[in-house]
């Protein structure tokens, strides 16, 4: 819900969550699947860098409504 309201203001927002199905269902447009509920941005720095880099790519991309991306391409 936060993601939708921020995007409604015109600010592109990536929601990183390990439950992307729910996220897309409620209408979040840019969802990135995180590795786990307990640590959406990964355990180690290298993993976190990959997740953040992928999120940045998603911010730099025009998407269709309720798009979900994986970290690994």
């Amino acid at each position, binding site marked *: *819900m*936060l*993601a*939708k*309201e*921020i*995007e*409604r*203001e*015109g*600010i*592109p*927002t*990536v*929601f*990183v*969550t*390990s*439950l992307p*199905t*729910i*996220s897309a*269902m*409620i*209408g979040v*447009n*840019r969802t990135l699947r*995180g590795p*786990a*509920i*307990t*640590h*959406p*941005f*990964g*355990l180690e*720095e290298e993993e*976190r*860098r990959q*997740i*953040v880099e992928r*999120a*940045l790519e998603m*911010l*730099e*991309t*025009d*998407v*269709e*409504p309720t*798009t979900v991306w994986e970290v690994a391409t």
Partner: protein
Amino acid sequence: MVRAIHYLNQFFAGLGGEEAAGTEPTRVDGPVGPGKGLAAALEGIEIVATIACGDDYFGEQEGAALGRLFALIEGDRPDLLVAGPAFGSGRYGYACARVVAEAGKRGIPGLAAMHEENPGVAAAAGRVLIVPTAVNVAGMRDALPRIASLASAVASGRELGPPAEEGYLPRGLRRNRHHGATGAERAVDLLLAKLAGETRSEVGGAFDRVEPPARVGDLSHALMALVTEAGCVPQGNPDRLPSVRAQAWLRYSLAGEKRLEAGEYESVHGGFDVARANEDPNRLVPLDTVKGLVDQGRIGRLHEFFYTTTGNGTPVASSTKFGREIARELRDAGVEAVLLSGT
């Protein structure tokens, strides 16, 4: 006797709390926990087995979870599947909806029970019968007889009446039928009821949609903000952010911070095991990585505050309100991109 299977999460199956949320699918003969109360309310229906799965396991490996759960009951020859009640628990409600939907695909009729704002209701997408319940377990006693009543109706195989009569949430289906009153008369009745304080509708609602904003043109010059629904706050939770059903969101300064140090920040989210997040809060709010990318010039600047709330059990209306308020602040601050984390 109708043979029913009951689905529970790890908590209601007595397998443990958040620390057991990774529990793999399992099966027990007969009713367990709330299933015992449900069994007492059921007439002509026997709970032959209970299946359970940890909420995190289900959320993270849904396909495997469904496959294994249904493999466990292959020998039970079920006529009916009942899931929950999940009340306001989002992961549990989601699992209940998906388990019942899968049962339907396999020719087993079923029903779930949860609060009407549980994300499981959206997950059901109108394809699952859902008995509405209170938002928390205090509503168990009220919920069980209503679940039993709808279970009997489903097991009988008869055509169900409208949601309000049979006690399930509207599925967005419309059925033609003859009505004694004209549309004009019914509209006036609805209006009079509304003036008297009761809002009714003949049609179901739907989630609204937002057009995706255009991409960020040049991130290396953009102002980015960090927002989280994972309940990340300074150690000791000085502003007392509730761990469930948040009534507010908070804003904390990141001035001078290079990373969120363990022992200085923690998560108070009541919907998942926060041990790993508290070992390193950057796992929830990735300040360390983002700062590094700002230094490298990949990201222009980082907004001086981060925003936080807890996203579990929060009613849709509150969550929308928080979102609007945070969004306005971000817009006024000139923020051009947001990284939001949730669980």
